[in-house]
């Protein structure tokens, strides 16, 4: 749909500037191009004919983290992230898509096996022409960007993907009644497998049956990029895998996936052949954090207390309104001294493949996060999104901190 359709929404910005406070990009750059007010001004200029679609608006459109902090700070709550997405979509149409993204969205993300292969190819330092793709996935950040150091990478790189050992299927759990479908996100599958294993352990405790679903990428990366069609294709593929009536709830330990799965119905508006199915699936999706909050398994008491802090993934806090739950969980854990992270709900700069496409900016955003982390003196930084885990781990290493970064499932199990 033409961006001009949203002229009223865009014109609603009266330029008060309050979005500047909360925008991680603006706080890093101080450039008007990096804040909601500026992005909306550009869209208004396009609609009013002062500006044309062209390469000079690529940066303002694509350097948005889509974290939604601006809307949360906007008194009239203008949905800038949504408008930016619409604009990205139109931009791709009018100015063009990059081949790297086509490769990623059309040929890699729909197929977990190809994804494994690509990731490993990069990890082994085999310059197979796919390293750009791996970069786009943010893989390199956990190992550093230096490919010649492949030896190091291989040492620490999981040799197998999560799915290699945990095949789709139904597994019996120790719980009483709950039947859980486990949606394995790409991050967990390829990189943060420890988190996946921990989640699986916990699900085994909580649920009677654990169905490891045969899903592919949820579609969020494509959607964030503005490629609605690719996002729809990925979602459609998933809908058939997720439509099983054999599960009571679909759980994922990736807050980004969870928030996007919950939005599937928006991808297929009423009237679309997949709409009902999308509504059905979306309605059953739960973030692992929320599931844990309701079904907290017993944990052993630690001998030496640990200081723990928590980073809110954008897709948990603003995407799903999950703020209280993880904190309550952490505070209830024995032997844990919980300390609130200043600006905990500020984006870490990971934002999917953002960190690679906008390396400098992302690093500045991350540096702010790390400065805040230092003030807590935490032993462990907990979060609930693999993309954040990857980005934060990178940050911790970059800043030479001793803090460990863990998915919440890992901490509990």
């Amino acid at each position, binding site marked *: 749909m033409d961006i001009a359709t949203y002229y*009223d929404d865009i*014109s*609603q*910005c*009266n*330029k*008060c*500037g*309050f979005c*500047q*406070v909360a925008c991680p990009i603006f706080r890093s*750059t*101080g*450039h*008007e*191009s990096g804040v909601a007010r*500026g992005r909306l*001004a*550009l869209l208004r*200029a396009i609609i009013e004919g*002062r*500006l044309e679609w*062209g390469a*000079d*608006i690529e940066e*303002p459109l694509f350097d948005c983290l889509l974290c939604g902090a601006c809307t949360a700070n*906007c*008194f*009239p*709550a*203008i949905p800038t992230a949504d408008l930016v997405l619409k604009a990205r979509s139109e931009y791709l149409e009018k100015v063009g898509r990059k081949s790297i993204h086509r490769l990623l969205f059309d040929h890699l993300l729909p197929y977990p096996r190809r994804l494994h292969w690509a990731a490993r190819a990069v990890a082994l330092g085999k310059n197979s022409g796919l390293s750009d793709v791996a970069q786009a996935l943010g893989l390199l950040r956990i190992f550093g960007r230096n490919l010649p150091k492949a030896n190091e990478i291989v040492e620490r790189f999981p040799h197998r993907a999560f799915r290699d050992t945990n095949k789709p299927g139904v597994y019996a759990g120790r719980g009483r009644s709950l039947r859980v479908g486990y949606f394995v996100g790409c991050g967990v599958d390829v990189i943060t497998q420890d988190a996946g294993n921990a989640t699986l352990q916990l699900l085994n405790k909580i649920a009677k049956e654990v169905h490891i679903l045969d899903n592919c990428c949820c579609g969020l990366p494509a959607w964030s990029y503005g490629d609605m069609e690719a996002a729809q294709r990925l979602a459609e593929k998933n809908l058939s895998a997720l439509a099983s009536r054999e599960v009571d709830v679909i759980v994922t330990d990736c807050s980004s996936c969870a928030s996007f799965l919950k939005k599937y119905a928006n991808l297929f508006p009423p009237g679309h052949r997949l709409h009902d199915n999308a509504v059905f699936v979306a309605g059953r999706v739960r973030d692992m954090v929320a599931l844990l909050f309701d079904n907290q398994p017993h944990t052993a008491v630690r001998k030496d207390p640990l200081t723990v802090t928590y980073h809110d993934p954008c897709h948990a806090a603003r995407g799903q309104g999950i703020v209280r739950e993880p904190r309550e969980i952490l505070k209830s854990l024995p032997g844990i001294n919980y300390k609130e992270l200043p600006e905990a709900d500020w984006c870490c700069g990971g934002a999917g493949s953002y960190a690679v496409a906008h390396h400098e900016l992302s690093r500045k955003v991350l540096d702010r996060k790390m400065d805040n982390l230092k003030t807590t003196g935490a032993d462990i930084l907990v979060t609930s999104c693999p993309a954040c885990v990857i980005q934060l781990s990178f940050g911790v290493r970059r800043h030479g901190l001793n803090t460990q970064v863990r998915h919440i499932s890992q901490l509990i199990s």
Partner: protein
Amino acid sequence: MITDLLIEKLRGIVGKSHVLAGRAGTELYSYDASLAWGQPGIVVFPADTPAAAAIVSAASQAGVACVPRGFGTNLSGGTVLPEGIIICLSRFNRILGIYPKSRHAVVQPGVTNLELQTALAPLNFFYAPDPASQKVSTLGGNIGENSGGPRCLKYGVTTNHVLGLEMILPDGEIIRTGGAALDPPGYDLRGAIIGSEGTLGIVTEITVRILPAHAAIVTMLAIYDDIGAAARSVSAIIGAGIVPTTLEMMDAPIIQAVEDSYACGYPRDAAAVLIIEVEGPAAGLEHQAQNIRELCMQNNCREINAAKNDAERNRLWEGRRGAFGAVARLAPSYLVNDCSVSRTKLPEALARVTEISERYEIPHGNVFHAGDGNLHPLLLFDSRDAEQMKRVKKAGWEIMEACVQLGGTISGEHGIGVEKLAAMHMIFSREDLDFQQGLKDAFDPCNLLNPGKVIPAPGPDDRKKAELSKTGGHGAAVTALIQTIQSAGIEKQVLLPVGNGSRREFGNLSSEMPFPLGSSGLDDIIEYDPSNQVVTIGSGLSLEKLQDELQVHNQWLPLRPPFATLAHSLGGLAATAACGPERMVYGSVRDLMLGLRFINGRGQLITAGGRVVKNVAGYDITRLMVGSAGTLGMITEMTLKVATLPERCCALTAQGSLDTLAGAAARIIESNLWPACIVAVPVEPQEADYWEISIGFEGIGKSVESQVEQANRLLQEKSMQSIGVQDYDPINGRFNEQYQVLDGFDFLLRANVPIDQLVDLFVAGQPSLPLHYPFLDLGNGRALLGLEKFANADWLNFADLSAERAGHAFLEKAPVEFKKENDVFGRPRPEWGIMHRLKNVLDPGHIFDPGGLPGKA
């Protein structure tokens, strides 16, 4: 014109990635938070002062206009500059230092107001100005607009809290004016620059005063079914002599819009709410809150409740601060009017606003600083509709006219920018505007810094002359003075305004023998509005007469100038910027002055400022005239803020070595007490190191009592024993004896350094000080020293010692023979250059006391 060469040069200065020249990049800097629009030619982001200065130099050489910009939340179009260079200071984002011991902080202009507040909070300090946009408005922007905010009701606006500036002049020169040491000699440059909307210089570093956080705070929400009743409550509270910290009003449309955004705790069915906050020591605070409650209830308040905790309090403020953004729920665009009227005229002003907005069929909402009389009607419309835009502008114009008719002004805090340019004619004559233009010309002769703002160009809308105030003989006396000055101009006779003649020795020796200009016919009280706490007087009125008159209404002018007896003329006190140690709580003359009139060297009667407590219309000529020592004109009339007489004034005294006393003073300065003065004098002059300290507290009885007790405890912590608690007279204070002794000396030295360095300066200065009598104002970092003799070398040595401690010294009084050989203001400073440029432009005939300025000719 912006050439490729210039762009290359700028890229060379700041790096390629810090220059935006493209269509999209400049589109992003074509607006601020107002309705103004204009696409700049280029945007640059310097990281430090040298880079910014290099940009300004390059622009100046190329003849291209530039404007400094922070985060672009200006509400009058002041940072929109078509085709020029936007110098964005967002990278000047560091707090350079916070110094609780000397109650100051140094920041860069790109730091937001809230960032500074957040940094100060853990130290239990705050920076008083708190514009509602504090989350996003930068301190540099606050300087540009002389920003106010809710708390300004009690503490005053930006100009009352900025101590010093580093700035780049339009030709690229970097100067400093003021600093942590109070009251530098010469013209109040920082006063002139604050509120100049980026047209005089680019501020690159700011020194602000910080204040200790109060022990307790009560925030109340008063709910009304009728907006008139809310406005009457405001008048009643101020009229009763209560000055809360804030008195904010919001009406029904705003309440709705805010509540639609966030649940802030305002009742949706109310016609208006007031947010009233009082703060201070816990003792006496509840009593004050209770008085306010009763006054509100007497004025048909539905109910009034106090916030139960910080969360509730924060929510109330969150809503108030977000109101401008929230109205986007009602309409895509708004025009905010920023008129200011006397507090007692609020009900009338609000009624006029409603009438005008209804007549133009433009809906509006009110959210404003009611306690200051500073209206913010938001006219709601859609800027995409040209016809609506026309109506809105007309309505806005009429609201300004209505407020001016009510004795108000066109802008309380948002500035003139481009939006109110034409309305400047409503309040200033061409002669007033020309005088203001003189200020601009002195700073920016080529008109390259933010041109086209603040002062409208000469044209058919110009008004000729100010009308004379007509009370008693005032008008006639002014007419006579105008004639005298005009003929002096023709005859090249040099003049020196001397008031009633008692402080003629101020400043450097005039180069020619000046003819003394008295103010004897100007001793009227022109207008006194006790319920509004404002008085307009003739400059010849004595302080004594004024205090007598004010006391009838239980009010006073909170000023106890040393050396000046009560018989001194107020004009003279203003011209010499006299103030005593109570400055630490009441401020100095510059902080009490709302407006004035004076006759310039051309014999024109010039009006500056106004009669309302908040006013940013035009350049701040008022601040420039205060302390100008009669070198720019003869002050004829002044409008001053007055205050309720303190219920009780009480001083705690203790004795000991100077070091011990200094330690105690430091402890009190860092505490959350609000003393009115902290002074040390030797018990026996010229004897051993044995001093007496007086710590005065003034205000509501209970609060004074509890603070004296707390101060006593702090003294005990420092192993000091108080030797007495004494009440003193509010008008005379408690130092007149000492002042008399000081005034008996031939030399009177005044030195100011950062508060915590005063004792150090005094000790270091001993060798160069012959027999002397000291008066150490530990609360303001000021030493007053009476000396029988002062050798030239000793004077310069002492001046250097002050300068080494980031301070300054000057001789308030010195014999003529000494003055012939010395500059009483010490060694030349770079900022004196601009003072002389000002003098040349504003008094081209050099009629007024040539040579009196710092920097002997």
